[in-house]
């Protein structure tokens, strides 16, 4: 019996002179789009170009929280469709992505935050998403070790409970899509940086890389935190600023937490992995930056707020801390669509601190848009033209901090 498979996850290729579609960015969004282009539209002359290793961006650095309890009528069905795809993806890819639907709790510590959660629970229920308000006593039953004391600095008043939310193995998702793409003939090119984009008569003709220049029929920008740098090469302005986001992981502990906890008031969110480590995330660094180095003040903040919720964790050691970069939009909603300035330049950007959960449905919808030139109705509201028409999609209350 062969214990370890000798199969390669994806093969090496030399870059060809031309492709039908070039995808910039080897994270979950770029790879999911390539997967659906090949699988659903039989477009296989596709190259995914990644300047580093696959998952080097936010897709390999996130806290892997999946949920669909958003706030707006545009966001809720979109993220819910993604969650449903994630429920099937292990089976579909033949590759275990360790999706654990352990449930998700967003804590409210003030009247205004509880009012915001209530709006979400009503909107969620109207649109068929399993989501409801619970009191602090029920929070204490779901998480017996949490501090529900009325004497806490910010006592927990109530919570939005979203049972289908949970945690996934982010690397497995990236690798699973890349492997499936490779099996269908899509080329995966790690360590291939895009350095320029040639536009003629409002169309992209070539993509310049560190290896060679390639001709292409269409380009997808799926570079998240780096989105502006690629967009600028095509001459397309973006309403995006890049901010770092940090997280940390503790030493493994006995299982004590089997639900994801998020608190916007305390600027913190946490979950316990199958190995027992506590994964803790912070809010974005308070200044624009492309730096992926973590900082001591943020570690202190994560520790302080975790201890507000679980004071007995005070002696626990931190194993690692890291940062990724996030492409923040003015309304905390993504930008998906073709650029109005350059018709075959497609954008799947603005994923901020919340885009991992959207990978599968964005990939599916972007592939349909590239193949048919018509945006599926699920992503139509997320076009960049909303900044001209003023139809912004206010997801800040449901997307900031609570990734």
């Amino acid at each position, binding site marked *: 019996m062969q214990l370890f498979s000798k199969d390669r996850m994806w093969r090496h290729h030399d870059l060809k002179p031309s492709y039908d579609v070039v995808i910039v960015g080897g994270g979950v969004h770029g790879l999911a789009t390539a997967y659906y282009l090949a699988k659903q539209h039989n477009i296989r002359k596709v190259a995914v170009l990644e300047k580093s290793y696959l998952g080097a961006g936010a897709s390999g650095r996130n806290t892997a929280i999946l949920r669909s309890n958003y706030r707006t009528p545009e966001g809720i069905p979109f993220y819910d469709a993604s969650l449903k795809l994630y429920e099937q993806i292990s089976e579909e890819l033949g590759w275990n992505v360790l999706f654990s639907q352990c449930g998700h709790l967003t804590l409210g510590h003030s009247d205004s935050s509880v009012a915001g959660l209530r709006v979400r629970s009503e909107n969620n229920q109207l649109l068929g998403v399993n989501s409801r308000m619970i009191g602090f006593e029920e929070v204490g039953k779901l998480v017996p070790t949490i501090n529900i004391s009325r004497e806490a600095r910010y006592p927990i008043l109530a919570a939005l409970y979203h049972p289908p939310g949970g945690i996934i193995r982010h690397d497995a998702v990236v690798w699973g899509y890349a492997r499936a793409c490779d099996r269908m003939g899509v080329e995966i090119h790690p360590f291939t940086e895009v350095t320029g984009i040639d536009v003629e008569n409002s169309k992209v003709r070539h993509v310049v890389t560190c290896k060679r220049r390639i001709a292409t029929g269409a380009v997808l920008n799926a570079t998240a935190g780096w989105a*502006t740098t690629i967009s600028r090469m095509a001459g397309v*302005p973006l309403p*995006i*600023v*890049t901010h770092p986001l940090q997280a940390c992981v503790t030493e493994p502990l006995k299982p004590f937490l089997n639900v994801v906890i998020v608190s916007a008031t305390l600027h913190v969110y946490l979950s316990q992995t199958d190995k027992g480590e506590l994964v803790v995330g912070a809010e974005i660094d*308070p*200044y624009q930056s492309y*730096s992926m180095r973590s900082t001591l003040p943020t570690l202190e903040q994560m520790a302080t707020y975790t201890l507000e919720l679980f004071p007995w964790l005070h002696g626990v050691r931190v194993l690692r801390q890291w940062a990724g970069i996030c492409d923040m939009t003015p309304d905390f909603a993504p930008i998906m669509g073709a650029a109005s300035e350059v018709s075959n330049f497609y954008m799947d950007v603005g994923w901020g601190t919340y885009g991992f959960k959207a990978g599968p449905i964005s990939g599916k919808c972007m592939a349909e848009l590239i193949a048919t030139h018509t945006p599926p109705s699920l992503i139509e509201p997320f076009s960049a033209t909303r900044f001209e028409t003023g139809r912004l999609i206010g997801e800040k209350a449901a997307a900031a901090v609570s990734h």
Partner: protein
Amino acid sequence: MSFLVPCPNCGRRSVYEFRFGGEVRQVPSLEATQAEWQNYRFNRTNAAGIQTEWWFHYFGCRQWLQAVRNTVSNEVLHAYLPGEKH
């Protein structure tokens, strides 16, 4: 990475004493078109490299400063009061 901002009033101080105020940009003229105003309202340069920014020294002299910073390394090359020669 955390870094220091060289405040012209207070000297080199932790970035956590300051509030970030975004990119320094040119306000459109009153005759500007709707498209120019939209561009000003939403679009950003978001440079991966050198950029000039607003910073408010919240826990210091409480003055708005402009700083030239490398957004990849976070090194602040210099900071000055708005309108001052640099």
